[in-house]
Structures are given as structure tokens and as C-alpha cells.
């Protein structure tokens, strides 16, 4: 009896034919879920997710900026160090150059002074020689005159004659000297 009733009922129930009221309820239920998620809840959470991503990316960006700054500063220091080294090298070579110039200058000065001294010496010697020659000429003249006076017996006190005689003597001497040369 029970089985028969069930069989009869099953003929009416085709599980693939949807009852209209359930279609309506299903549509309504899904529409409610969709509406709330679409209009209110998902935009809410999307906003927060975006904010969070921005916050995280902002942090990363900050870290990157700090890294960049550190790198820049390091580079700057390195540049400065290299510059300082360069400067020092330049100064050293400059000092060397200056030293060399100084030495050369001093050497030149020394040379000049030596030359001056030597020249002064020469001049002095020349002057002395001239003076000596002058003195010698006078002494030799006087001596010769005296000698000649004694020999000749004739006073050659007379100035004019005296000097004429001396000159003639000296000229003779010079001629002899030139001829002997």
C-alpha cells in the first residue's frame, strides 16, 4: 500500500521540473546576497584593501627612499674622499714643483752671486794691477832717472827733460818688449 502510494506520487514529482515558487524564492535570496555584497560590503572591503596596500607600499617606498638617501650620502662621501685624495696629491706635486723651482732659483741666485763676486774680484785685481803698474812706472822712472843721472852726471832735475827722457826710455822698453814677444 505504502509503496503504491509512493509510486503514484513519484509520477507527479519530476525532480528536473522546477516549481515556480521555489524559482522565485531562489531568485529573491540570491538577489539579496548579491545586492548587499555588490552595493555595500565589497566596496567597503575594497577600499580598506586598497588603503592597506597603499600603507604597505608606502612603507616600502619609505624604506626605498631611506636606502636611496643612504646610498647618495655614501656616494657623496666617497666622492669627497676621492676629491680630498686628489687634492692632496695635487698639493704634494705642487709643493714638489715649487721646491724644485725654489732650488733652481736659489742655484741660479748662487751662480749669479758667485759670478758677481768673481767679476768683482777680477775688477779689483785689474784695478790693483793698474795701480801697481802705475806705481811701478813712477818708481821705475824715478829709479831710472836717478840711475841715469848718476851715470851721465847730468842732472836731469829739469822736469821737462826728465819726463822726455823717461818717456823715451819707456817707449824703448815697450818696443823691446813687443819685439821680444
Amino acid at each position, binding site marked *: 500500500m505504502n509503496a503504491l502510494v*509512493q509510486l503514484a506520487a513519484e509520477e507527479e514529482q519530476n525532480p528536473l*521540473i522546477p516549481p515556480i515558487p521555489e*524559482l522565485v524564492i531562489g531568485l529573491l535570496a*540570491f538577489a539579496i*546576497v548579491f545586492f548587499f555584497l555588490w552595493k555595500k560590503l565589497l566596496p567597503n*572591503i575594497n577600499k580598506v584593501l586598497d588603503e592597506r596596500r597603499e600603507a604597505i607600499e608606502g612603507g616600502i617606498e619609505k624604506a626605498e627612499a631611506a636606502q636611496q638617501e643612504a646610498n647618495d650620502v655614501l656616494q657623496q662621501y666617497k666622492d669627497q674622499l676621492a676629491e680630498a685624495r686628489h687634492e692632496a696629491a695635487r698639493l704634494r706635486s705642487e709643493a714638489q714643483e715649487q721646491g724644485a723651482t725654489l732650488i733652481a732659483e736659489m742655484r741660479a741666485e748662487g751662480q749669479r752671486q758667485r759670478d758677481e763676486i768673481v767679476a768683482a774680484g777680477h775688477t779689483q785685481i785689474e784695478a790693483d794691477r793698474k795701480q801697481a803698474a802705475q806705481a811701478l812706472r813712477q818708481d821705475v822712472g824715478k829709479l831710472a832717472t836717478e840711475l841715469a843721472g848718476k851715470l851721465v852726471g847730468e842732472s836731469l832735475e829739469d822736469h821737462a827733460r826728465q819726463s822726455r827722457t823717461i818717456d823715451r826710455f819707456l817707449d824703448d822698453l815697450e818696443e823691446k818688449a813687443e819685439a821680444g814677444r
Partner: protein
Amino acid sequence: MQKELAVSADQMLAFETDCHIFDGCGFPAPGLHSFVFEPLLTVGGFEFNKPMLLALVGTLAIVWFFWAAFNKPQLVPGKLQMVGEAGYDFVRRGVVYENLGKREGEKYVPFVVALFFFVWVMNLWSVIPLAQFPVTSIIAYPMVLALIVYVTWVSLTFKRHGFVGAFKNFTGYDKSLGPVLPLAMLIEFFSNLLVRPFTHAVRLFANMFAGHLLIVMFTIASWYLLNGIGIAYAAVSFVMTIAMVAFELFIQAIQAYVFVLLTCNYIQGALAENH
């Protein structure tokens, strides 16, 4: 009169009867009648039954959950928000972006997310104590969802490609097929526009239907075998009931996933350029 009798017969749950094996009464096997319910209340000819109640309560549960999780979201999420985000992100990234891409898919995220959680919760009723009936094993619910998806992707195809383009899209128009082109077009047209929505709905429906039938079968058997030597078999049957419940939990999630995956697939097909 006859129908009412049948309905009251299937309303009689296994443990409400004193019928056991060796008592001279047959096995009260579950069947199609397990999916028909007496109206809980009737308002002006509108019969409000258990699946409808479950559908509405499930709807409220989904909305309540996402309301609690996402209404006032925090930058540093609380527990509920974290769970909600995980679920949302799974569907958004794992299903929508994966199939449609971020640019094209963004528009369909709310639809697919709503679809996934709706289907999943309606499936989940199958193992919730006291309810223990998957709403999606009533063909009307999967059908309505499949219909919404169908309308979505068909209208999208027309919008994207125009009338001729849409026709080519539906029929898989491809000149290189040569003489078999008309036949291929006929098959494609039939497969895409007629079979596709049907299989989309029935795949979900049949899985839930069969799953529920199995659980009910083993549950009734556990009770029915509780007599004499049958007790040993009853124990096995009871273990099977528990195993089937665990298996159903798995199938429910899988079917919800497959349903939205196919949805994305169809939308993707509608967006794709003609070859």
C-alpha cells in the same frame, strides 16, 4: 489525497518508526519523496516549505556574516574580517582574475563572489544539524542561478560582438573547417546555447541530490538494521554516514567552486575575440 499521503509517508523519518530488520517490515528506502516537503505554512495558496526556509535563513546568514566582517573594515583586520577577506580573496584572485584577468574581471567580482558563497551555503545546509537538507538539491535553485549566469553571458556576447559576431561566437564559426562547417556550427550552437545552461544547473543539482540521498540512505539503514545480527551492519552503516558527511563537506565546496569557475569560463568565452 494520494499525494498528501505520499508526502506524509516521506516526512516520517527513519528514527520515528519502530521498523527494524527481522520485524517483518521492508526497508524504508529514501527516494524522490525525500525531496518533497509538506508546506510549513500556507499563505494565500503560497506554500512555504523547508527548502524555502533554509534558502532564506542561508541568505540571512551570508549577509550577516559579510556584514559583520566587512561593514566597518579595519586596516588591521579582526578575526572575522580576516576570514571574510580570505574567502573574498580566494574567489576574486583564484577564480575571477585567474580566468578573466584583473582588467576585464573586476566588473564581475561581486557577482561571482555572491554566487560562490550563495551556492556554498545552500550546499552546506546538507550537513547542518536539524536542517540537513541541501537547498541546491531542489532543481529550482541551481536553475535560477544558471539562468542568471546564462542571461549574463549571452547578453554580454551580443553587447561585445554585435548580432553577427555573437552568432559566430555561439556557433564557433571557423572557415578553415571547410565542408563540415555547417555541422560544426549546428553542434556548437546546440551545445553552447541549449545544453550549457542545462548542464550548468544539473551538475550542481545532481551532485547535491545524490549526496543527500547517500547520507539519508546510510542514516536510515543504521536505524533499520538495529536488530539482532543486523547491529554489526548498523555500526558499519553509521560509520559510512559519518564518512559520507565528511565527503559531502568536500563535495559541497568543490561544487560551489566548479559552479563559479564555469561561470567565469562562460563570461570569458563571451568576452573572447572571434577567431
